[in-house]
């Protein structure tokens, strides 16, 4: 594990901060960390104030919990309440508000919700309770998609007919494209997510870099990964180029994990999907392919998830798009705190507002 310590060396961090401040120029450079894990790592590392005045880090839509629409939560609750399904979910989803309730509140009211650590646990739960329909809440990005797809294939192979997935799987590059095209956001560089890139490969960001002229650097989650990634983005900006670079080459490659990609292609097909706070993004969702339709909860129960833009004072949408910082939202820290979250960015452990609130970023 000394390997990790090498990426946490305070002296190297100090030198990198100095280099970033030197390279930044006059106006603060607007960079976006796309991924929620980066957002938390930046806040935990106290990195934002270190770079204050030189770099403005905007937090992107890469927290799967934050971008899951409230209609999805409502649909899940309805499957439990009206169809008697046993819901299996990752823990992060429990406190996310739907239109009028959350899984946590409904669990307190008697709805059966089991927290699982992997989609395969949900298949095992279904196999162990053959008289109940088990619906797994399949929320995530390209990182989680192979595990969800693998669970569906396992259920199919083992003939676990009482298992299905309510899919809310999204893909990151399409969302980056929408934000890159938004003149209000004015992104000058993307810090691209590490785990997602391990699956899809860094080449996946080429269209964004080429089409919008925005430098992209894939970075790991250690403090030095992030600082080095930022430094690499500034160098591209200084040189006037916009290409994809990979700081996280110790794990991620340009082509990604082919086996995982094949699995995703086998089980899912791209679709348009709604992102909370952002709207519908074309081709940014993964729905379950027709050949696995019997494991698709929306098909199986004829209960499609309906997307509707939220209408509330919550400005999570603008936070997710990097248009404002959490502190600029009038609800932040007042009506909206982690104990009583108003919007999803305050709910999730990887949410931008929660990270700002928790670490005082």
């Amino acid at each position: 594990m000394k390997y990790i310590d090498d990426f946490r060396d305070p002296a190297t961090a100090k030198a990198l901060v100095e280099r970033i401040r030197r390279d930044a120029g006059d106006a603060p450079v607007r960079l976006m960390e796309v991924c929620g894990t980066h957002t938390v790592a930046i806040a935990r590392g106290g990195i934002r104030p270190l770079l204050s005045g030189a770099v403005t880090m905007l937090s992107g839509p890469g927290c799967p919990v934050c971008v899951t629409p409230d209609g999805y939560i409502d649909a899940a609750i309805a499957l439990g309440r009206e169809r008697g399904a046993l819901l299996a979910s990752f823990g992060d989803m429990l406190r996310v508000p739907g239109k009028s309730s959350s899984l946590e509140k409904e669990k307190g009211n008697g709805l059966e919700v089991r927290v699982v650590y992997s989609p395969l646990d949900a298949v095992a739960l279904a196999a162990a309770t053959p008289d109940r329909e088990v619906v797994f809440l399949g929320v995530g990005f390209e990182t989680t998609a192979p595990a969800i797809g693998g669970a569906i294939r396992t259920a199919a192979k083992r003939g676990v007919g009482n298992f299905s997935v309510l899919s809310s799987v999204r893909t990151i590059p399409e969302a980056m494209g929408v934000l890159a095209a938004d003149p209000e956001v004015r992104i000058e560089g993307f810090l691209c997510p590490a785990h997602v890139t391990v699956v899809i490969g860094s080449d996946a960001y080429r269209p964004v870099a080429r089409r919008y002229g925005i430098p992209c650097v894939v970075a790991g989650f250690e403090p030095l990964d992030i600082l080095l990634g930022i430094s690499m983005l500034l160098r591209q900006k200084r040189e006037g180029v916009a290409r994809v670079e990979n700081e996280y080459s110790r794990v991620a490659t340009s082509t990604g994990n082919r086996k995982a990609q094949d699995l995703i292609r086998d089980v899912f097909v791209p679709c348009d999907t709604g992102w909370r706070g952002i709207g519908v993004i074309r081709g940014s969702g993964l729905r379950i392919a027709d050949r696995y339709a019997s494991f698709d909860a929306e098909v199986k129960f004829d209960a499609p998830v309906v997307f509707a833009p939220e209408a509330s004072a919550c400005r999570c949408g603008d936070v997710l798009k990097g248009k404002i910082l959490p502190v600029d939202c009038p609800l932040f820290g007042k009506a909206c705190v982690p104990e009583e979250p108003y919007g999803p960015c305050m709910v999730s452990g990887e949410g931008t507002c929660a990270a700002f609130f928790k670490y005082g970023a």
Partner: protein
Amino acid sequence: MHDRILLSHGEGGKRTRDLIARVIARHFDNPVLSPLFDAGLLGRIGGEIAFTTDGYVVTPPFFPGGDIGRLAVCGTVNDLAVCGAKAVAISCGLILEEGLPMDTLERALAAMRDAAKEAEVTIACGDTKVVERGKGDGIFITTAGVGVSADGWRPAPSGVRPGDRIVLTGTMGDHQVAVLIARRNLALDAPVLSDVAPLGGLLLPLLPRFTGKVRFMRDPTRGGVGVTLNEMASAANARFVLDEARLPVRESVRGVCEILGFDPLYLANEGKAVLIVAGDAAEALVAALREHPYGREATIIGEVREGGGGVRMRTLAGGVRAVDYPVGDQLPRIC
């Protein structure tokens, strides 16, 4: 004797008497408990009396490095020790679920006996109830503990001063990660053992050696070091500043935390203590802690500064950030 707990084991008749006499008293044999009076008679105990209680509902009851029985004894002994009190006697309330294998009960009782022996505390009284199948979780244990501290000075938040150092007696998060792995819903094979241990022998001899220098002590159990420090800073109305580079975390624990997105700062410990120590005594106190098996990895993790209650951390990247209370349990992240 039956090989499983039956409802009739809790109904007060012959089976209850057999269970107590043949199983429980056999493990807990001592002059205070064995007469099986309605109360344990402790004799005269000198000094100020400390009294505490706790309940143990850990699932699974057996995990790498410990079990619910050892946990029940150590948790109570440690609550007394961090108040400067030597545990004298503890109670043992057993709530057993119908169908619990007798072997499981016996293993837990044997672990309580061994831990009590190690902590030099008498299991002085007890109670047993049996609940219907499905209304319990195998075995729950409640304990109360009586301890005694020498008259005169003892650690308290009012003694904390700017310039004091924050000392942690070892690595963070071992217990909670060991339990998480034991739940078997993690496909992880990290060799992590719970740190569950009685701390009286580590902490209490230091108090007369460092009179007035050990200002305040707590054991960072549920909520971990992060929550404990927040509570301590608030009680002492002081500002604590931690140094991230000095926070001790076992490599295997760190690995599990990396995968699950957990912060070791908020994971439970059952064999560690946080001490606020006068700046001029901190190094000597750490050296003394390290002489004891349960303090081998003791280290200074931060300092007390001027200012109101709250905890900050100097990060590895060179920044400063808040260390706050978490909201609810830490949950595994999605990606």
